[in-house]
């Protein structure tokens, strides 16, 4: 499935582009090493005009290096980057005027007010928004006269976004826009990105939050070890897992207090075959499970079994029955809709947050 998606991209880039066939960003054969570390190890990507494109991956996957090469801040060792039909070698000054950039961990001077920071950045652009427009877009009206030092993390991040927007850019780069924010501040930033999407701007963002990529991005490239390991719309990528839902369970011989293990609680009485607690004491017959209609695949990670399942409503009773037949009882059981996280796990065998 991975190969199928990538083959299609390689064969005809336009097909894979989002809304239109016109590429805003064209990356070819990008390589960048820092010492022995190959941060970016051969990347080809195209992003269509008006598309919101996500680079998703764990820390150290090469997302930031890739985006900083695109931003003209890091020169690549090999490969080309074309933004809006221009290149950094020939048209650097023009490109700087056309793109907006939000970097990871920029700290603006604490003793300047929000308005002063934005007025300063506005003066760098030949054309752009008025201050009032930029402040309204970032919903910072109430903090206009406040000093940056007194803002919350989410507000500071919106100041950073506003500095990227004052030049009214055609193309916007957001590097981990919500990392380190609390859930409410994150939703606030998402609202802002969604408004920018509606206004038709091309956005490239990096994130290691699955839900963020699923919610905001038209297409996502999953990166690992400097390479793109999967590319497609969130739906296409999730379909690669094989089922729409994920069933996770552990078998143990001692009941736990997990709220989702009502079945385990029921079976607790007749399951005291082994006194040792924890997962994986019973041996699961994987082939039996895989034979159940709707179960697409199975993997086990630290004794937590994961099945990707279609037809959840018919498969789950059969899974219960099969485990009962094997004389096992459940110590944990839960289901969730398949996410990009599951895609990543499926592709790499690792969890995104295993760092």
């Amino acid at each position, binding site marked *: 499935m991975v190969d199928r998606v990538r083959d299609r991209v390689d064969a005809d880039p336009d097909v894979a582009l989002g809304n239109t066939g016109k590429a805003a960003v064209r990356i070819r054969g990008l390589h960048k090493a820092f010492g022995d570390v190959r941060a970016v190890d051969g990347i080809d990507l195209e992003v269509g005009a008006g598309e919101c494109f996500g680079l998703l991956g764990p820390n150290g996957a090469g997302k930031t290096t890739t985006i900083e090469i695109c931003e*003209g801040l890091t020169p690549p060792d090999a490969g080309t980057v074309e933004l809006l039909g221009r290149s950094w070698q020939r048209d650097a000054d023009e490109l700087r005027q056309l793109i907006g950039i939000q*970097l990871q961990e920029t700290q603006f001077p604490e003793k*300047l007010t929000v308005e002063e920071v934005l007025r300063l950045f506005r*003066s760098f*652009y030949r054309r752009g928004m008025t201050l009032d427009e930029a402040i309204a877009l970032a919903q910072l009206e109430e903090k206009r006269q406040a000093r940056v030092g007194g803002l919350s993390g989410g507000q500071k991040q919106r100041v950073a976004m506003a500095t990227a927007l004052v030049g009214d850019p055609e193309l916007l780069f957001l590097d981990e826009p919500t990392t380190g924010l609390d859930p409410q501040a994150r939703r606030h930033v998402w609202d802002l990105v969604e408004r920018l999407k509606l206004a038709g701007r091309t956005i490239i963002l990096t994130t290691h939050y699955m839900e963020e990529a699923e919610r905001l991005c038209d297409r996502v490239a999953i990166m690992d070890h400097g390479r793109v390991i999967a590319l497609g719309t969130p739906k296409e990528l999730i379909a690669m897992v094989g089922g729409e839902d994920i069933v996770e369970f552990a078998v143990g011989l001692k009941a736990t207090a997990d709220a989702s293990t009502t079945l385990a609680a029921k079976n607790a009485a007749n399951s005291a075959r082994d006194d040792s607690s924890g997962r994986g004491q019973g041996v699961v017959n994987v082939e039996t499970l895989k034979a159940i209609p709707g179960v697409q695949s199975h993997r086990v990670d630290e004794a937590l079994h994961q099945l990707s399942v279609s037809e959840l409503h018919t498969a789950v009773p059969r899974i219960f029955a099969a485990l009962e037949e094997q004389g096992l009882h459940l110590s944990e059981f839960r289901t969730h809709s398949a996410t990009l996280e599951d895609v990543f796990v499926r592709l790499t065998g690792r969890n995104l947050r295993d760092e």
Partner: protein
Amino acid sequence: MNRLELSSLYQLTVTRFKLTLREPEAIFWIFVFPILLALGLGIAFRNRPADVLPVGATTPQLAQALAANKGLRAMEMDEAAGTRALATGNILLLAVGNGNSVVYRYDDTNPDARTARMIADRDIQIAAGRHDPVEAQNQLMHETGSRYIDFLVPGLLGMNLMGSAMWGLGFSIVDARAKKLLKRMVASPMPRWQYLAAYLLARLIMLAIEVVVLLGFAWVVFRVPFRGPVADLALICVLCSLTFSALGLLVASRARTMEAVSGLMNLVMMPMWIMSGVFFSPSRFPAFLQPFVQALPLTAAISAIRGNMLQGIPLGHMMTPLAILLAWCAVPFAVSLRIFRWR
């Protein structure tokens, strides 16, 4: 927004100026500290009647002869007590009488002791019957311009120009680098030269204020003289400030942390605080050190300021210090532009 507000150089300069003014510590070091120092030292070294020098004598005759002079405070003591008093600095000189001869014990590296030796010997010789062949009279004067405070104020001004330019540039550039603000600035269309030029422009505005405050204070309180053309003095101050800004830029061009830049700053400034003649004349240093001392930018700066204020020398006659300052401005500026780290 009007056209001025849309000018990036204007915005960068105004921003830099505001940030300096919003830093209370910076305001203290730039404006208040030199005034406190001038006030303290001006009071400590105000012109007093000549010091009375304590001396000892081993015989009543000698003690009597010495006590007649108002410039000496003579005490009679035996030789052992006198030796102890000498060793502890309670007296500067011990006159040991031995029949018709006298031996002076004193430290000839101490100027006060040498003075005491001359006065004591004269008084003892006169008391013993010496007549001077030439009659001499004294006419005392205390002229403005030869006091310690007159010597000190140009030194403090030079030190202040160095400190505010180097700290002002060095710290804020490294701070912006550590906070990834420099990287964010070069990710915008801002012309890079404007970022550095804004530092220099904001520095020149601050310079005008700080020079007027310090010299105005010195003039009002101590009546420090301004013998040279004031326009020359202004030019010298601008040149000094640019020179030390260039040095500050060089020190800050690579450092990534505040600790690193603090260490480098102190390394660069410490020799100049000691040797460049802020508090005493640099000619006190031995001859083999003089080429080094004279080549320091702060030595040249203070020498030019003293030449203007105290001696009224026109710019055209101070080419050596001005050339040294220019060299210290041009070379570090060129080097730092070449090696400057934006991220």
